[in-house]
């Protein structure tokens, strides 16, 4: 592995070494999506990736029903989810029109609108793009 991989155990704080948390994940999920040459098609099922809502730079913002990040407390907007959305949750909700786990219809639609507005370079974009690839 080269220096660009985020694979080393992290961090020292106050003189103590803190090990990075890791999840092996569910048996039915997957941690690999493959793009084969001359066949721009994903093989695999579900990518265990995260989509923060909103991204860290706007972490205090709320999400409007249109998926825009607005000031906290704005009327008609929703507080962000307490944890990043999972690629699989987004894939399933978009594919079936169902709600995100733990959220009602309105809130789910707002969060999904946010995800669908993600631009290249925004945290979670690659995860969403991968999810989109798997839907086709």
């Amino acid at each position, binding site marked *: *592995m*080269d220096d660009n991989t985020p694979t080393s155990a992290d961090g020292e704080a106050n003189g103590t070494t803190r*090990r990075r948390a890791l999840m*092996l994940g569910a048996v039915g999920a*997957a*941690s690999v999506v493959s*793009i084969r040459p001359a066949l721009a098609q994903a093989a695999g099922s579900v990518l265990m*990736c995260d989509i923060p809502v909103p991204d860290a730079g706007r972490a205090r913002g709320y999400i409007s029903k249109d998926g825009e990040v607005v000031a906290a407390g704005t009327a008609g907007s929703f507080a962000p989810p307490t944890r990043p959305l999972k*690629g699989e949750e987004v894939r399933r909700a978009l594919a079936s029109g169902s709600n995100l786990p733990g959220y009602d219809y309105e809130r789910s639609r707002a969060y999904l609108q946010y995800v669908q507005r993600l631009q290249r370079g925004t945290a*979670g974009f690659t995860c969403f793009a991968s999810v989109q690839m798997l839907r086709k």
Partner: protein
Amino acid sequence: MSATRYRAPPADALLIRELDGLVALYHRPSGATHLLASPAPELLDLLAEGTMTRDELLARLVDRYEVADAAGDLLDARLSELIAVGLVSAT
């Protein structure tokens, strides 16, 4: 019967870049590109240090990371994915 041992490709067979919380990996021998989510990059990282059995890999993983769900069947599932796409070989 000896336990199955797992091996990662040599470092020069891979081109690796971090990409928005994921790891994009180009496997030169196959020409395939893979997007890896945790814990796949970490598993490849450990296996790059040498071949090991599932139990050895699990022990190394727990030693290096705070693994909330350290179970053999889950590690088997992750290894199976990596084997299926040719990033890990089992002997």
